[in-house]
């Protein structure tokens, strides 16, 4: 019984220390988010988002297929598939140009990972979807317009 009490005290002491560390700003959420490219996700323009996420905004059109509905009734859930036959793809970024912050997501591919990503994004209004791929250090892009009936960002 006594030993249980010891364990209990030890436990409270430990949480206490963590709590103090958080309180003192030693463990802020920003430390947790160390790797997250905040600037890229807050950028308001396509070019700033690309510079921040992929290091450059100069891109040429490449062999990239974007599968998305022509008309999305609900902007809160728009399925997007990006696929390419390009070889040596290391990065994929998916942007909704008309969103306040265009960058929706970016992906780093390991060796042997195909140039293929599918997800579902939110769109505020009708917009071009731009997919930018980095292959052998060069950026390539593809575009597809998606018309949105009801926007899915505010509410």
């Amino acid at each position, binding site marked *: 019984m006594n030993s249980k009490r010891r364990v209990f005290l030890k436990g409270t002491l430990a949480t206490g220390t963590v709590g103090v560390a958080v309180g003192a700003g030693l463990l802020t*959420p920003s430390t*947790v*988010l160390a*790797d*997250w*490219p905040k600037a*890229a*996700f807050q950028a308001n323009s396509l070019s700033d988002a690309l510079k921040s*996420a992929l290091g450059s905004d100069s891109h040429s059109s490449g062999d990239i297929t974007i599968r998305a509905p022509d008309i999305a009734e609900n902007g*809160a*859930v*728009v*399925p997007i*598939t990006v696929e390419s036959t390009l070889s040596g793809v290391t990065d994929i970024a998916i942007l*909704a140009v008309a*969103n306040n*912050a265009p*960058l*929706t*997501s*970016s*992906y*780093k*591919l*390991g*060796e*042997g*990972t*195909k140039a*293929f*990503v*599918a*997800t*579902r*994004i*939110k*769109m505020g209004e009708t917009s071009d979807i731009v997919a930018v791929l980095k292959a052998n250090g060069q950026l390539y892009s593809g575009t597809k317009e998606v018309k949105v009936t009801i926007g*899915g*960002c*505010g*509410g």
Partner: protein
Amino acid sequence: MSSIRVRAQIEGGVTNVRALISHPMETGQRRDQGGNTIPAHFITEVKAECNGRHVLTANWGPAISRNPYLSFQFEGAAAGDTLKLSWVDNNGESDTTEVRIS
């Protein structure tokens, strides 16, 4: 129960991964009925590893839909290998799951 549901199936040397994560993905722009802003709460990073090898890292913003879906494909795995999928959100919450490639 894990917040991640994932399937990994191999066909012709290519492993096809499909994952669904339960997460609110709040943008920080919505208001509740009282007019108060609902704080942003979204997954920032999803990582996939196969037998300890890096397969894919996704950086997500709040523009990914609620209860996110993610699918990707990779080569170099065999049936029976383990695929590990984990996520971290902007509040520091996280979850991890492992699945056998079939």
